[in-house]
Structures are given as structure tokens and as C-alpha cells.
């Protein structure tokens, strides 16, 4: 039976919180850094998902979002390259609806059941926002989820699903809109969310011949804490025992990624035999029934939602978050790349591939033609540096390099196992930048220029 084989998540390090000047709310929300976007967060979740798994069996990658950095240019191709998946795979974007993630999940499951793919990864990420003072402005957070689907070593079987489609323009964005528009609240909730999601769940329960009391845990989309609580009652679930914490006070509503992130939260607490309800909303609704298997006890440890949620830094003031949202262009000056040069260097740039000399063993980044130490020509083995940890060998804190992350921390990184590179450090506090400080790598946007987004890897202090 097809189901979930592995999962990964990403919650940005920085949070708005009680100590944040100018925030004024007793809740915490995740805020993407100036150099993060939906693509970079999807990559982070995808890397987390692949912990302990072989990339060779992944035959497809889907990228689901309502905040794609491009209107035309596939995000999934970028995500697949950065996660270092193979070439002979299917990559596809799912956009334009909060349900994009669960629709991508349906397609992934269908491909596996049809035998056209062994494993498919679904990544979902969003950086949504609403007008200041609106419900969405208060509730929205940034984050990403990744699920690897397959039919071997399944940790949670997908027993069945039900989907409905409804043409209702309750919330929408057109080209150029940065904030979600909505119709009147009462209409939006009465004819949209509060009507359609229960319909999909009801259809699922009829198919599966179950009732609400058969559900161990429910993970479902909710636009705000209040509406999410209302939905739990409408679905006939006990909010104290049968509903995963919707995390409105720790993370926020992460858009297309949200339902999958709550599903991951359920899986992190689950025991073999648990039945999990997953439901999502947007231009209709999807509902899935999953059953956790004993394989879940064998899943190699990963950070997941739990780990990234716990690793946090509270912003000093809310203005910083505003500046970051405004600087979604990456915050660095400089021109667009030479596309031919960037394409030629894609393995080094997107996959952070280094070369290990087969003659003397020295790992060199980027991979050379001739070894720097023993001068042997063209005898190399590829080494992936993106999932390696390392240390800051030396650094500088530059006040004149420009950009919005001042001082700009430049670090020479020595990777565990060998290899060295020079990168901009991100997610950092200036006091932490020292020789020998431990780091790990993260995929981020350097700048947007000429309508192109230029991504690369950066080290960041290890997220404990």
C-alpha cells in the first residue's frame, strides 16, 4: 500500500514573540529571514526529509506553494537540484491554492499506486501575508514541510481519501498582489472553510466506514485559532485529545504547508496503529485517512517540526521582520548572473558538489580539473557538502560590503570530513561569529536581479 516513507520540516529560526518590541501579542510566530523564500524553505524541509535515505530511489519531486518566487519558471526543478536528486525524475509545481500541497500528495500517491514512480517527494512552503491588522496578518507564519511517499518501508499508510472541488472566490490574489484579498468574513467562513472542509471529511468517513471516535489524531488546516477550534467541534472531535496543537502561538498558519506540517506533528507523537485524519482547504477540500505502522519506530532521527520549532531566536523588534519581508529580493546589491556561467557551475552552486582527488584524497571545492596538492588530472569522486556540518575557520564582519545584513559575516568554512569554502554566514548574531564555531549549511537566496532569483548555500550556526 502507498503511504509516507519519511518526512521533514522547516521552521525559520527567527520568531516574533512577547519580547519583540512593536509586536504586542502574547504569541510567537515564525518569520522567514530576508534571504529565505518558499523555494529555500522547501529545500530545507526536503534535506531534512532525506536524512538517512538514499536519493537514488526518488523518482519525482513536487513543489506546492501559493507564494512561488516565479510566475513562470519551475520551482520544483530548483528544489530538486538543491536537494541533489537525480536527473531522470519528474518535477512539477502545484500552485494557486492552499490545497496545492494535498493535491500534490494525491498525485504522488497515484503515481506510486500506478507503478510509475518508486518514491515521490512532496514539498510545500509558503510566506503568506495579509493586510496589517487583518486576521491573516496576525495568524500567518512562514514554514515548510516535505513528505516522501512510496510503498516500501511505509511509516503511515494512506488508507483512503476524498476530495471536493468548489468554485468560490473567498480568498484570492492576482498578479502583483503581495497580500491575500478576501470577501466579507462571514461569507468566507460560512460558505467556504466551515462548509467545505467538513463535507470532504464526511465524504471520507463514509468511504472508510468510520466515525469521529475512530480518529486518534486530526491534522487540519485552519485560518485562525478561533476558526480552527470551531472546526474541531464541527468535525465532532475532542479538541483536548484528538486534535494536534495548531501551533498558532508558536509558528502560525503556514499556508499551503500548514496541513502537512500539522500532519508531521501528529506523526512525531504517533504510535503504531494510530489513525490520523488529514484535511486541507482551498477552492474545495481534501481529506485523507492514514494509519501509522510499526515502521515508524525505525525512522532515522531527523530535526523535523519538533526540532526546528524548538530552535528559535526571538527578534528584538517587529521592524526587522518588516524589513525582511520587504527585502525578499535577497538584500544584496549586484547584477543578474551570466546564465551560461551559472549553468556551467550548477553542480557546485545548486548541489554544493566538491571533488575528492582519487589519487591523494584531498577534497577540493569547487571540483578542479587538476588536483591542487598532487597535480593529478581528472581523477575525481563527487562529494556533497550541503549535508555536512563544519566549523568557521576564520571570518570577517564587513561594514562596507553593503546589503541589509550588516555587518556582513564572511566565513571560511572547513567541512567535517574535509573540504573548505568561503561563504556569507546567515541566521547569525554577531557575538556568535568566532573561529571554530560549529555551522551547518542552508540554501538561501543571494539576490534578485533582472527578474532572476540567484540562490546559493550559506552556512548558519547549528540549529540545536
Amino acid at each position: 500500500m502507498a503511504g509516507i516513507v519519511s518526512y521533514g520540516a522547516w521552521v525559520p529560526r527567527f520568531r516574533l514573540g512577547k519580547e519583540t518590541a512593536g509586536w504586542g501579542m502574547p504569541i510567537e510566530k515564525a518569520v522567514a529571514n530576508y534571504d529565505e523564500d518558499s523555494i529555500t524553505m522547501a529545500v530545507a524541509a526536503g534535506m531534512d526529509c532525506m536524512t538517512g535515505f538514499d536519493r537514488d530511489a526518488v523518482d519525482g519531486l513536487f513543489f506546492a506553494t501559493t507564494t512561488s518566487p516565479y510566475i513562470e519558471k519551475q520551482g520544483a526543478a530548483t528544489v530538486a537540484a538543491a536537494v541533489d536528486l537525480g536527473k531522470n525524475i519528474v518535477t512539477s509545481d502545484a500552485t494557486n491554492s492552499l490545497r496545492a500541497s494535498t493535491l500534490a500528495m494525491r498525485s504522488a500517491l497515484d503515481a506510486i499506486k500506478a507503478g510509475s514512480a518508486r518514491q515521490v517527494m512532496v514539498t510545500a512552503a509558503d510566506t503568506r501575508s495579509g493586510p496589517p491588522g487583518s486576521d491573516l496578518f496576525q495568524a500567518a507564519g512562514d514554514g515548510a514541510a516535505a513528505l516522501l511517499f512510496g510503498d516500501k518501508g511505509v511509516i503511515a499508510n494512506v488508507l483512503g481519501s476524498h476530495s471536493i472541488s468548489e468554485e468560490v472566490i473567498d480568498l484570492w490574489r492576482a498578479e502583483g498582489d503581495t497580500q491575500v484579498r478576501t470577501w466579507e468574513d462571514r461569507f468566507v467562513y460560512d460558505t467556504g472553510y466551515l462548509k467545505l472542509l467538513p463535507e470532504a471529511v464526511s465524504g471520507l468517513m463514509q468511504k472508510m466506514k468510520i466515525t469521529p471516535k475512530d480518529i486518534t489524531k486530526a491534522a487540519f488546516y485552519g485560518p485562525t485559532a478561533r476558526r480552527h477550534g470551531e472546526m474541531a467541534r464541527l468535525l465532532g472531535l475532542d479538541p483536548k485529545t484528538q486534535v494536534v496543537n495548531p501551533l498558532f502561538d508558536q509558528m502560525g498558519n503556514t499556508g499551503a504547508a500548514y496541513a502537512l506540517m500539522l500532519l508531521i506533528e501528529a506523526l512525531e507523537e504517533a504510535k503504531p496503529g494510530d489513525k490520523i485524519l488529514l484535511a486541507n482547504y482551498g477552492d474545495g477540500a481534501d481529506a485523507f485517512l492514514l494509519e501509522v505502522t510499526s515502521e515508524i519506530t525505525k525512522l532515522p532521527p531527523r530535526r523535523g517540526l519538533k526540532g526546528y520549532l524548538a530552535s528559535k531566536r526571538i527578534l528584538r523588534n517587529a521592524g526587522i521582520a518588516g524589513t525582511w519581508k520587504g527585502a525578499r529580493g535577497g538584500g544584496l546589491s549586484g547584477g543578474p548572473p551570466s546564465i551560461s556561467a551559472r549553468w556551467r557551475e550548477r553542480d557546485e552552486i545548486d548541489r554544493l558538489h566538491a571533488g575528492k582527488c582519487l589519487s591523494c584524497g584531498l577534497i577540493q571545492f569547487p571540483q578542479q580539473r587538476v588536483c591542487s596538492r598532487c597535480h593529478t588530472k581528472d581523477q575525481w569522486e563527487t562529494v556533497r557538502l550541503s549535508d555536512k556540518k563544519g566549523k568557521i575557520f576564520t571570518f570577517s564582519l564587513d561594514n562596507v560590503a553593503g546589503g541589509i545584513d550588516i555587518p556582513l559575516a564572511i566565513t571560511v568554512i572547513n567541512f567535517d570530513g574535509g573540504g573548505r569554502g568561503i561563504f556569507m554566514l546567515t541566521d547569525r548574531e554577531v557575538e556568535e561569529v568566532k573561529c571554530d564555531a560549529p555551522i551547518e549549511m542552508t540554501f538561501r537566496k543571494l539576490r534578485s536581479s533582472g527578474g532572476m532569483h540567484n540562490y546559493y548555500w550559506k552556512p548558519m550556526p547549528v540549529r540545536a
Partner: protein
Amino acid sequence: MESIKDKVAIIGMGCSKFGERWDSDAQDLLVEACYEAFEDAGIESKDIQAAWFGTTGLATGQPLAHAIKTEYIPITRVENACATATDAMMNACHAVAAKVYDLVLVAGVEKLKDSGVGYLTGGGGQPSSQTGAPVPPPAQFALAANRYFHDYSLSYEEGKKILGMIDVKNHRNGALNPKAHFQREITLEQAINAPMMAFPLGLYDCCGVSDGSAAAIITRPELARNFRDDYILAKGFGLAVGGQQGMLRDYYDFTHFDETINAGRMAYEAAGIKNPRKEVSMAEVHDCFSITELIIYEDMQWSPRGRAKEDIESGFFTLEGGLPVNTDGGLKCFGHPIGASGIRMIYEMYLQLQGKAGPRQVKNPKFAVTHNLGGTPGSFTCAVSIWGCRD
């Protein structure tokens, strides 16, 4: 292979005023420096048989021909980052030593102040993937400073103090030099507390940008006597070009520069110098940043490895010390018009060896060393030249 020692002589030199020369373009600066050199040598531009032209901002040898109105002579334009001018001098000397030419001009110029930026930006305009980290020169050398402090257990205060002492020394020397861009002394407190450019390097740890030109007339020693008695002789050159070793080899330590070590050794060997600390009388080195000068002390074998601090604190490199360094104010105060700097360094050593350095005069100089370094820690081009008096 033969040594260049005593095969080439400088018979005249010139140097423009360095600084913010808003009213002068590159041609004006070249005319200023070259005509001073012609006068010093007692020649005219038509006597020049070939020229080597050092500049990073201009292309071909034509700007030099245009400035001093040479008529279709061979001019080779040289670019090797900050080592440009020394490289130009070295190659010109090879041509003269080979007796291909008898009278050669070496000139360097840079017009940096039209860029509108007050500090070295590192430039670089080739089409690229644009994913390289932006590391302007202050940040590049901060990488060396931070690791040096770490490896030699210097606290921030201890490190800033010795860097500051280098800044104070160069400012004091520059204040004695009417051609320098900056002629103002500073205190150690000012150096230590200056605004931070790239931690731990502050404003006075970093050289600025200047306009300037410098020139030399060279010939063979047997012909030099016809022009003057106090010509100086080339004793040795070194040129060491790195190939990114420091970034590709994860065991490079960022506290020494192999290119300096190699170029220094080449030049010492050609000159027959076996104990640099004792035999070198004075030096002009590439103090683009204070930490650079500090590491040069060790790489050029004047201070023992890791112990430059002791020599700095004892004043060994001041005008009164055993090995005065940057007697004319260095890059920091004289200025750093890139294509001219190597020749400017030789200009000061020329004056010193002739006893014409006035208040900056070093007593009884025998061997004068110049050192230029272009690039970034991990991959440099380093050029060294050594000069001496005739016997």
C-alpha cells in the same frame, strides 16, 4: 639561469604628488612623474627605446605613448593586481640585462579617485554566476587578522594595539613626506578606536584610494656612469603567483602568505642575502592593511614566525629601529594608486640609497627591499625587488 644582480641600474626617477588629484587625469600624472624622471636622468622622451607601463585601469601601452609623445616605440602594458608596477620593473630589467635595449622607461599610473568610492572595492567585472561571496579587501584581510589573533592567543586589545602601532608609525613617516596623500600623525588611541571597517580592522588599519604616478629610467651599469655617479643597482627580484591554494587546501592557516615567502626567497637568493633580518637595511612593503604589514614582517624573515608583536613593540621597524619599514608613509599614507605603487616604493628606496631622503633618511643603507602583494589571502601575486648602491 643567471641572477639579475648588478646587471641593471636606475639612473633617474620621478614621482607625482599622490592623493586626490581631481584636476589631473592619468596622462597629467604620467607627464608629472616621467618628466621628473627624465630631468633626474638628464634625458628626453625621444631617448627612450622601450617602455614598460604598469596600470590596472587602462588598456594597452597607448595611454603612455599618448602622455609623453613617444613615437612608435615598443610599450608593454603590465597588469598583475597590486604587484603590477614591480612586475613591470622586473620585466623591463630583464630586457635591459639581455642587452635588447639600452635605455628603458618604467612607468606606472592609477587614477582611482574618479570612481567615487573612498576605499578599495576589489573591482571585478567579468560575467559570472554572481554566487561568490562579496569580500572586499578589508574583509579579505580581516580573515587573516581574526585567525592570527586566534592562533597566537592575542586578545582583541592586544591585537588592536600592535596593529595600531603600525598605523601610527606609517602616519608619522608620511607626515615627513611632502608627496604623500596623508601627512598627518595619529595617536594609538585614534587608531584603536577608529570606526570599524571589517572587524577587527578599523579606519586607520586600511589604506584608502589615491591617484598617482611614478617612473624610472633604467640602463646597464656600464652605461649608467655616463649619466650620474649615484645610480642604484638591481640586486634581485622575486615574483610568486598563487593559484587559489589557500582556498582549495583546507589545511592553509591564513596567518602567513606563501606568495610573500616564495617571492622573498627568490629575491634574497638572487641578491646573495642569507640573513634578511640583519642584512636588509630598510624596506617598503605592501601595507594595504595593518595586518598585512605585520604578516609581511614574518613572511619576509625579519621577525620570527608568530613573534612580530615583540619587534613592533620594541620599535624595530620605526625610522630609528634596526629595519625601518615604509619610511615614506607606505600605502597607508603615501597612497595606493595600484599601477604606480611598486615604482613609488622603489622611488623612496632610490632616494634613501642616494642619501636624499631628508628627515626620513636611514643611516648607511646597503640593501633596500620593496614588496608588493595583490590578491586575497589564499591566492596572491607577490613581487619583491632588492636594490643597493654601486660598490
